[in-house]
């Protein structure tokens, strides 16, 4: 499976994501520069974490206008697989490829730490190698990860089982304490209705090697590359 990692000005998890896809998951991986045109035949576009355009204005707000993103939108419309991690998730929200918006973390501080997330939907392109209810230990690192959507939208998301991950305790319980950033419905990862676009705030690429203290994030990459 051929991956393309998009670089926006200000992306900073681009190398990390590229490294995992290429050297850990061992898939052909190329760079996609935000100003270029053409997705060069990739099967999956990954929008990495970071601070595209400094996250000035709002996280992801300016990056969504990058020339390449119009093509990523068309790619997604045709069923192409798109994964947004952290800032990438924020870009997908701003672009409207995923519903809702991000607010500042509830404690108004940047949060960098390991969290545990519960896999809610295992019948997806991004998680079919995992089990429902499985708890993953993965780091977060963001300022704006407090997921928000109006009630009607939330209802729809839940009805369509679009929530892929929720912040939970290590035992899978959903508590206010575990919901570190204050997200509605403890949402940590979300896909579109069609199931080909997913965004998540935690960083699976930071949890894909034993040395880094967790390999739980690999299940996402391994799901993407295997037959669904």
């Amino acid at each position: 499976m051929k991956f393309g990692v998009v670089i926006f000005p200000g992306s900073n998890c681009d190398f990390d994501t590229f490294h995992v896809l290429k050297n850990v998951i061992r898939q052909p991986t190329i760079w996609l520069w935000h100003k270029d045109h053409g997705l060069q035949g990739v099967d999956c576009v990954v929008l990495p974490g970071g601070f595209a355009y400094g996250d000035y204005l709002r996280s992801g707000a300016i990056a969504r206008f990058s020339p390449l993103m119009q093509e990523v939108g068309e790619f997604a419309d045709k069923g192409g697989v798109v994964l947004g991690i952290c800032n990438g998730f924020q870009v997908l929200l701003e672009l409207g490829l995923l519903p809702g918006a991000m607010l500042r973390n509830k404690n108004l501080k940047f949060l960098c730490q390991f969290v545990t997330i519960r896999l809610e939907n295992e019948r997806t392109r991004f998680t079919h190698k995992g089990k429902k209810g499985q708890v993953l230990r993965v780091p977060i690192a963001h300022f704006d990860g407090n997921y928000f959507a109006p009630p009607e939208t939330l209802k729809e998301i839940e009805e369509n089982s679009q929530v892929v991950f929720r912040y939970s305790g290590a035992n899978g319980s959903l508590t206010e304490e575990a919901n570190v950033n204050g997200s509605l419905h403890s949402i940590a990862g979300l896909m579109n209705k069609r199931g080909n676009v997913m965004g998540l705030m935690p960083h699976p690429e930071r949890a894909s090697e034993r040395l880094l203290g967790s390999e739980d994030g690999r299940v996402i990459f391994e799901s993407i590359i295997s037959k669904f």
Partner: protein
Amino acid sequence: MIDQKNLDNHNLTRDEYGLIVKLIGREPNLTELGVFSAMWSEHCSYKSSKFYLKQLPIKGKNVVQGPGENAGIIDIGDGQVIVFKIESHNHPSFIEPFQGSATGVGGILRDIFTMGARPIALLDSLRFGPLASPKNRSVMDGVVSGISSYGNSIGVPTVGGDVYFNDCYSLNPLVNVFCMGIAEKDKIFYAKAEGIGNRVLYVGSKTGRDGIHGATMASQEFGEEIEHKRPNVQVGDPFKEKLLLEACLEVMDKGLIVGIQDMGAAGLTCSSSEMPAKSGTGIEINLDLVPQREEGMTPYEILLSESQERMLIVAKPEKIKEVKDVFAKWDLDAVEIGKVIEGGQMRVGFHGEIVVDIPVSAIVDLCPIYERPYAAAAQPKKEINIREIPIPEDFNKILMNLVASPTIANKEWVFRQYDHMVQTNTILLPGADASVLRIKDSKKALAVTLDGNSLYAHLNPRAGGIIAVAEACRNLACVGARPVGVTNCLNFGNPEKPEVMGQFKEVVEGISEACKAFEIPVTGGNVSFYNETEGVSIYPTPVLGIVGLIKDINKVVTPGFKEEGDAVVLLGENKEELGGSEYLKIQFGREDGIPPAIDLAKEKAVQELCLEAAEAGFLESAHDLSEGGLAVCAAECGFFSGKKIGCELDLNDEWRPDALVFGETQSRILVTAKSSKLKKLLALAGKKGVTAAAIGKVGGKKIRISLKGKALVNVPVEEVYKEWNEAIPRNFTVK
């Protein structure tokens, strides 16, 4: 005509002015005076410190670049080098905590990538007044958010640092920032302006009227006097810096440039004079071509602005187009503003006139060096009569109080705000003795730590200097790393006061002595004087940044207890020392006595033992004893275990129990080993002549410490953890 008032405003003495006139053979104009004022400021010229810094050991087989460049460089083998440096940003961080600390991070990052290295780690050493004061809280809150905003955005992990609290920092908080980068040995870049006719390019943000006189400000005491001179603090733009970083590394990687230097303190003046001075050339620049943010800027302002996120590049004429293309790719302009000339002059044009025409060597190399008078000041305070101090009853309570002291408490509130994992190299996260970073595609790893106990330095400056080095190295030994290079930031009061100069002299002597003993080279550092407000000076505060190398990443040792039943071994000797301890301060409100003694030969032996035991695979965990002594050390090992495991320790010494449990005697490390390896560990200690005592076992939910069977401490780890964990955040929670 330059009069006395001009000189006062520029912080130059009559004699210095006389020298300027002699060096340039005429009276300088006001712009030229500004140039000299900035470059001859304490901050840029090190005129009060240079004489003493000369004694620091700077040589070593692995040294590629010692002091004198933007950062020091150490060879780590396999064609790779590390580039690292520490800088202070104390004054701006007090005036505007958020922007002050943020731009401090921006500045040190530029020092590293200007040498061709990709920054891989930031660390910060912070000193604040007590958190009971709202002002101190807001300074700390702002400083931490500022560091977080800049480092996180640019994508360099902030992997460690230290934080101490003391009254002496209420009006002079300290913010020292360290950065390390990694580069290929044959792709290092220097601040060179070689090749007559080569072009000078300006890249990055436009120049505004910010921070004019920043260097001068950092070279004066705070007080009403300076209030009106306070410049605008610069606002940092981490996004711009990220673009600058990527673009600069790209032009370097493609071999398109000759030399490069960041514009930090003293801005364009500094870079455009230092580069030719180092290369024995001159420079000609036209200020009309400098991108400007504001209208009507004078040459004086353009030359001395400290606007952030700017670099000066020297490139061959035929490469200019390619250089510009790379910068354009990153949405940055590279503007030609001048060229390298023969003859050693700095010649600056503005609106068709020459406004500065002076020899670069006069500005850069010929600033007077002062051997300022020092008083055998800061004599170690008298030995306290230890028998005067009553031995408290309730050791559990003391332990609770100690872990709740913000200096000892969990710093997670701070480092949780820093992205410490980006770049996916951090294998030992902040919190441990030293942070450990892997080097991708290799078996090696790097360990880094910052250290400096200023109370020790206040009580005995020389000991303070020695202990700071020893403890930093000990922290490295605890994770299994051997020190390879040192940088240091020396924060002091007003050097024109003989007592302060006395402190400085002794601290530097202490650092030199310790570095020589450890055979580690000092590759650079920074001096911050005038940390003094209304005549009250900070404690002398040396901050040591030491980098260590780990040959086999699989041999890294971590501080947390691992398994129930593991043997606990104390490496090193116990003594009866309480002077300068956190225990005396917290329990008795005393900051006096003689700080713990240190014998560098013994210290080295203990560290060597720890390192060899780690390499031999004997150790399950290691953590050194520092503030709060054995009890705090053992408690922390329990916290870091992840499972909050306790331990049961029994001591067998003749000393006072409070000294044994809370004293800060140096050269001690608490390690654990599988019982099957205990014998080998003790045998190794015997062979090395290091005292090592098996004092108990890991296990249970409590921290239990007894003396000859009599219980002293007996308290659930969970309870101690709670105090330790909440001590800092509770100052910042608004309901």
